[in-house]
């Protein structure tokens, strides 16, 4: 995955004048059917305009989306823009810790570790909207629960591929958010 991979959404910061105009917007509809947005999240949303991506979302090698836009949008509303980079960073860091453990477990045929790591990766991938990685992890975890060692190893190998891809996609998103944040600060300074 290239570092300049188009991000899922372009997050455009509105100027204070535009924000004033945005008070007329139908916020529930704007927030993608989030009918009761929390106050903090609503205030964050008022400072953002989410537009549809001009390019299709990045795909994994198996054709599945690396990042689920709906889940990321929901996550943005739930944690707020301010904390989004922090939680996304935690996910990238966790992938950085767990993928080497999976690699090592595959090499050592340590099925218990694979079972535990697949469970954790499945939960995290679902939470952060990483369907390709979640599918691989779910497959590995099911194989572990059914005692299918061969399927577990195959799915674990798939996790080894999807993990870095997902990590790179999320890292790009964080970089984009940081860039927008820097632009925002610069604009405010001007």
């Amino acid at each position, binding site marked *: 995955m290239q570092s300049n991979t188009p991000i899922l959404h372009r997050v455009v910061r509105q100027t204070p004048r535009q924000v004033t105009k945005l008070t007329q917007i139908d916020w529930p509809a704007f927030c993608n059917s989030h009918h009761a947005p929390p106050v903090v999240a609503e205030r964050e949303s008022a400072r953002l305009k989410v537009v549809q991506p001009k390019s299709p979302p990045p795909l994994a090698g198996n054709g599945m989306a690396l990042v689920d836009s709906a*889940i990321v949008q929901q996550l943005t509303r739930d*944690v707020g823009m301010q904390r989004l980079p922090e*939680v996304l960073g935690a996910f990238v860091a*966790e992938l950085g810790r767990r993928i080497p453990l999976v690699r090592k477990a595959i090499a050592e045929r340590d099925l218990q570790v694979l079972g535990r790591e697949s469970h954790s990766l*499945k*939960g995290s991938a*679902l939470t952060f909207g990483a369907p390709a990685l979640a599918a691989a992890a779910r497959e590995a975890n099911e194989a572990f629960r059914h005692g299918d060692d061969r399927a577990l190893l195959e799915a674990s190998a798939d996790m080894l591929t999807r993990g870095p891809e997902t990590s790179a996609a999320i890292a790009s998103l964080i970089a984009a958010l940081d860039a927008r944040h820097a632009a925002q600060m610069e604009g405010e300074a001007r």
Partner: protein
Amino acid sequence: MNQEVLLVEDSTAQAAVYRSYLEADGHRVHAVETGEAALEYLQRHLPAAMLLDLQLPGIQGLDVMNRLKALGCTVPVVVISDNGSTDNVVEAMQLGATDFVTKPFGRSRLGVTVGNAIRQRELAAMVATYRDKFTRDRFHGFIGSSLAMQSLYRIIESAAPSKATVFITGESGTGKELCAAAIHASSRRSDGPFVAVNCAALPRDLMESEIFGHVKGAFTGAHRQRDGAASLADGGTLFLDEIGEMDLELQSKLLRFVQTGQFQRVGSGETITVDVRIVCATNRDPLEMVRVGRFREDLYYRLHVVPVQLPPLRERGDDVLSIARSFLVRYAREEDKRFEGFTPECEQLLAGHRWQGNVRELENVVRNIVVLHDAQFVTLSMLPPTLLQEQSTRLAPALPVELREAPAPRIDPLPVGTAIWSGATAPSEPAPTLVSVPAPAPAAPEQTPALAPVLSPRRAEVIPLWQVERDAIEAAIASFDGNVPRAAAALEISPSTIYRKRQSWAGANQVAGGGQVAAGSQSVWSSP
């Protein structure tokens, strides 16, 4: 909300998301990654809720639940599961989890679930608080959790902090002195003295000295100055039991004392001021005593500030059994017997008895059993025959309808000389006489029939105990041709008791009859 939530999640990324959800809802979050760390934290803290992932390294989430249950930890637990762990969720719920959330979940879902769990714990705590406060099975010396006693406990607690006079009424054996002691113990005066005076136990002449004290030489035998109960109770509570027996003259002195807190010792002109809270009690109807002139109306309204009515034992439901068990344990220990409890049949009978003598009667029954028997459990055969007899009477309604509805045989007034207490035998058997009405007295033929309604199984009319007592004494004196000492000996009471009672009845009749002795009394009383 600002309530602490313990987050147990081994995935730092997911923990970061959940933490942000919870903090956005106003909670404080303490996050740990293992079950061991969670248990250690719970040994020192009690968060408002715990969010627990079931899949953890080391101790699994279900093991954490098991240990919490064993420790009796009351923290509400919301378990985090995924789609593949339904069985684990069911087991967690069986172990006491409040709710669960399935990954992935958003902020609103988690907020609602954790909020509900916290509210549920708050409600449970509130219920427990009210239960502790309003469903007490013991209160100072009282035993009992019945509704009537809960109400009594609340009244005592409300009245205790005040200095207002408390007027306790209730049948004999309902615990009037216990109530007075509870009021004192619950009050701000609990460090001060609690002095009880039984107004019926002393002759009238001594009563004034007993309450107010006397100086040396005040009367024959007053060799030195003596403080009365009013002085001794300074800073505390003075309990005047059986105040209805107090002489009318002394009542006027008591009225002044109640009004001003001042009194004079017998034989002294010095006025003494004390700070005393007065609690009084009687087993009679105080208003009726006022009506018949045996109690000063102004004193009644001075004393009757906070009335407390003690419920009779027969209105206290299962308290009978609680009290009986308590007595059984106490007396078995005292008498070194093996008793541990009552058989179910025995408890049924005890619960159904009417307990005219209230707790005192129950206490006597239990003590009687403990003294005369020794076994692990009290059985029916150990109960006094009076209780068994009443049970057989109560079983009468089980007869066929035609028999029950047949006209009851007419019960004539009890022939004089017949035993009036059936004692320890069945009604068909010759009854041992505990109190016997002696031979007829020509001057009092109208007295004996008054006893009949009391003895009638149908009990068309309930006669006040004092009236029964008066009639029995009058009949006894009449049968001995007015010889009080012989009548007292036959009644197994002291002659002075008869004299005292005669005086009080005569005084009452004079007041009620405008100074004239009632006609009925004239026919009964002859010179001692």
